[in-house]
C-alpha cells in the first residue's frame, strides 16, 4: 500500500473540497464536507482499491488520514 496513493484516493471522494488542502495530517471528520455519505464513499473506496473491509468504527476510532491509512494497512 502506498500512503500517497491512499491520500489521493481519499481526497477524490470529496466534490467541494480542494484536494490541495487535504494532507495526511488532516483530521478528516473535522472537514466541512465530511458526512455519512462521504464515510460510505471511503468504506467503498477501501474495499475497491485494497480489497479490505473497514467499518464505521474504524472511521470513528481514527483521527487523521494517516491514522486511517495505518489502520487499513494493518488489516
Amino acid at each position, binding site marked *: 500500500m502506498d500512503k500517497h496513493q491512499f491520500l489521493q484516493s481519499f481526497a477524490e471522494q470529496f466534490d467541494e473540497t480542494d484536494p490541495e488542502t487535504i494532507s495526511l495530517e488532516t483530521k478528516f471528520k473535522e472537514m466541512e464536507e465530511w458526512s*455519512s*455519505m462521504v*464515510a*460510505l*464513499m471511503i*468504506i*467503498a*473506496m477501501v*474495499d*475497491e482499491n485494497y480489497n479490505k473491509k473497514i*467499518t*464505521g*468504527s474504524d*472511521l*470513528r476510532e481514527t483521527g487523521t488520514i494517516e491514522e486511517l491509512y495505518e489502520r487499513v494497512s494493518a488489516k
Partner: protein
Amino acid sequence: MTGNPFFSLQDKHFLVTGASSGIGLCICRSIVASGGKITGTARRGNLLSEMVRELGENNASFIEADLALDEGIDKIAGEVEDIDGLVYAAGISKMSPLKFIKRQNLEEVMNINYFSMVLLLAQLVRQKKIKKNNHSSIVLISSVAQQVGTKSSLLYTGSKGAMSAAGRVIANELSSQKIRVNTIEPGMVQTAMASEMEDVLSSETVEKDKQKYPLGYGTPEDVANAAVFLLSDASRWMTGQSLTLDGGRYKLLD
C-alpha cells in the same frame, strides 16, 4: 384452536425461503404458532435442522438449497409438496454509493432478492405446486426502502422495487386461480442484517435514524404477524397490495 377461524392457518402448508434466520425464521415460528405447517429453505442446513427441532417434525421440514443457483431453485420446486402459499424472505443487503456500483455487486443483490424470487415462483406455478381455488397466498418481503431514496441503498432499493412491481404483475396473472400475491414493505427491523448495516454506519447515524421512527424500529415478530394475516383467509379479498410496516416513519411527519 379457539378464536376467529379466518386468522387460523390450520391445515395449511407454506414454503418459507430465508428460513434459517431473521425475519424468515420468525415467520416459520409464527406460522406454526397459528396452526400451520412449514417447509423452510436456506443454504445453511444445520440452522434449518435446528429450526425443525424447535418447531417439531410434525409441523416443520426443510430443504437445504442455494436459491442463488438454478439447481437450488429446481431442487426446492421439485421436492416441496403442494402448498397453500409461500413467503419469500430470502434476501441480502449491501450499501454502496452509485459511483462504486459494478455489474458484479449489482448482479449479486439482484440475483437473490429478485431473479431467484421470480424464477422460484415460475417453477412452482409451472409444476402446479401452489393449490388453486383454495385461498392460497404468496407474500413477498420487500422493503419500505423502495418507496423512498435512501443514499447508498441503490443495490438493495432497486431489487426491492423490482420485487414490489413484480408482485402486482404476478398477482394479476395468478388471480384466475384465486392465488393472492401481496408484499410487505417493512422499515428498519432489528435483525443480524440490520446490525451489519449499523456496523458500516456510525452509531450516531443509526441513533438519528431510530429517532425518526415514532414507534421505534420494528422486530421480526412485527413482520411475521403481518405475514400470518396475509397468508390467512382473513385477507382473502386482498391481492396485488403492498403493506407498509414502518412504525410511522414515512407517513407521520413532524
